[in-house]
């Protein structure tokens, strides 16, 4: 163990999935041809004026309310000035000292059930920059970059946390669960890959027990949780090595290279932030009506963490079940519909196990597959009632996926119904026992595991239609006389 303790805070940019941009009526798009969603406002032509998108404000408030933030009775926009080709006005409209949402708190839960309490410093509204790409590779004479303004002006909420995280893995847990909450709020697609959710981490280390923070670096734009965790760990290791050899950490922006695991410096110190913020004179203050905020608070959906707790406490699910099933609002809705009709624990086992495994091959999600919640419930019901065995039910599921047929019809058509006639099953078992005297002796000698061998044989012989429990019982009866 090193004698240093990491101190980590994160900044998360979330693109709001509104229909239009933050300050103009251009439609948001992803993957459309470049520069097909622009207007004089988002191209910063002279004389234009921004007008705030009401839905973006609503979503920012929703985030604030969900994170327990103080909502500012009155907030204002600021201009953040810097020159870069992705920013046509040469300033970004953002918020500075009076953001729409102030202090809040988010509680994430580690795998072992312990809490990670993360203070939220603020959540504010701003606009995204345009997309910059490098043109034509290394074409001679064309060593330039190309700007696509489709993304320019997309509404963003930036969430800033207090330096409350103490490890890279906690940071990843926090971000995953925060992302899930945002997905449940329906405010953003939160795709790290597509850049609709981006995270930067402020990382410093200090001797264990110290009150003061060390010098921090800003780890930029990591596009997956895995890279984020690895990046933070690499930065902690780098800083530890520097301090360990008597050096000093330089305050700078750094970048993590996932391919090599290396940390590289992104900007030199001379270009460090000097944004000369001043109040945006083109926009009037935001003063959300308290009744609007109260309405949003009252209408909050059930958020993932309380939902998980309810799944475990009231529905008999394991912590792991609950975590898997709250992966997305769509999956929750799917599960809840199935669980309303059959035993929730059985529903959870089938959905997170066999259903997801079989659908993974088809590259489908449960809610968009032919296995409707009603069909899933019907199948689980057939197993629960003993009408089909578990192996047969798996086969039925495959058929429902490929043909979209009702489970009961598949059972009927393929003759997969469980053999309910004990005598028929007993005859089959007797035959198998007679054909395998060695294993029968092993069972008699107390090698109980051999029972699985007989069950396997019985399942094979009946095409999966035997009830494994019944087979076990019958084998014991036949061999041991129990």
């Amino acid at each position: 163990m090193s004698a240093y303790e990491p101190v980590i805070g994160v900044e998360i940019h979330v693109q709001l999935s509104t229909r239009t941009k933050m300050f103009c009526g251009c439609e948001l798009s992803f993957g459309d041809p470049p520069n097909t969603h622009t207007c004089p406002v988002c191209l910063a032509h002279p004389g234009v004026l921004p007008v705030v998108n009401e839905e973006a404000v609503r979503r920012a408030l929703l985030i604030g309310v969900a994170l327990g933030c103080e909502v500012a009775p009155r907030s204002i926009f600021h201009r953040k000035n810097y020159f870069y080709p992705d920013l046509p006005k040469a300033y970004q409209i953002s918020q500075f000292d009076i953001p729409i949402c102030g202090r809040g708190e988010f509680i994430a839960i580690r795998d072992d059930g312990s809490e990670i309490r993360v203070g939220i410093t603020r959540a504010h509204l701003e606009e995204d920059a345009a997309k910059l790409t490098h043109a034509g590779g290394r074409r001679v004479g064309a060593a330039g970059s190309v700007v696509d303004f489709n993304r320019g002006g997309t509404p963003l909420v930036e969430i800033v946390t207090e330096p409350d995280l103490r490890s890279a893995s906690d940071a990843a847990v926090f971000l995953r669960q925060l992302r899930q909450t945002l997905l449940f709020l329906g405010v953003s697609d939160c795709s790290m890959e597509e850049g609709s959710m981006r995270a930067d981490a402020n990382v410093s280390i200090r001797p264990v027990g110290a009150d003061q923070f060390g010098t921090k670096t800003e780890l930029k734009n990591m596009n997956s949780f895995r890279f984020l965790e690895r990046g933070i760990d690499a930065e902690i290791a780098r800083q530890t090595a520097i301090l360990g050899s008597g050096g000093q950490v330089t305050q700078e922006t750094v970048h993590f290279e996932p391919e090599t695991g290396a940390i590289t410096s992104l900007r030199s110190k001379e270009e460090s932030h000097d944004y000369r913020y001043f109040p945006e004179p083109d926009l009037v203050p935001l003063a959300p009506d308290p009744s609007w905020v109260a309405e949003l608070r009252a209408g909050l959906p059930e958020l993932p963490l309380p939902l998980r707790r309810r799944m475990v406490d009231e529905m008999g699910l394991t912590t792991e079940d609950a975590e898997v099933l709250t992966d997305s609002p769509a999956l929750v809705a799917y599960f809840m519909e199935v669980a309303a009709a059959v035993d929730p624990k059985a529903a959870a086992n089938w959905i997170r196990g066999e259903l997801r495994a079989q659908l993974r091959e088809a590259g489908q999600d449960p809610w968009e597959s032919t296995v409707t919640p009603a069909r899933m419930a019907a199948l689980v019901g057939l197993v629960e009632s003993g009408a089909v065995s578990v192996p047969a039910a798996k086969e039925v599921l495959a058929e429902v996926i490929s043909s979209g047929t009702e489970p009961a019809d598949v059972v009927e058509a393929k003759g997969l119904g469980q053999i309910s006639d004990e005598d028929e099953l007993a005859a089959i078992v007797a035959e198998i026992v007679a054909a395998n005297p060695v294993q029968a002796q092993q069972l008699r000698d107390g090698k109980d595991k051999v029972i699985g061998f007989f069950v396997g044989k019985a399942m094979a012989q009946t095409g999966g239609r035997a009830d494994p429990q019944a087979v076990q019982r019958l084998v014991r009866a036949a061999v041991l006389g129990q």
Partner: protein
Amino acid sequence: MIDDSTVHHVARLARLRLAPDEEHVMGEELSGILEHIDVIRGMDVEGVPPTTHVIALENVLRPDEPRPGLSRDDALREARHVVDDGFGVPRMD
């Protein structure tokens, strides 16, 4: 007094290239402006809320409804360089 190095820094942020003698003149002028602000700062504004905006308006919002913008051709008409249907700019790495 705003010194030359501060002027140099601010000029750099504003992408202005100033000759050394211009930097000095600019420093004097900026100092004059800031001195005047110091005068304002000396006034008693106890109980006066900060005036970030001069119009007594709040919450000017727009419904989230798309409006037609510019065609790509129109958008790119004033671009100095058009490259791959985009605005060509100096290389940014």
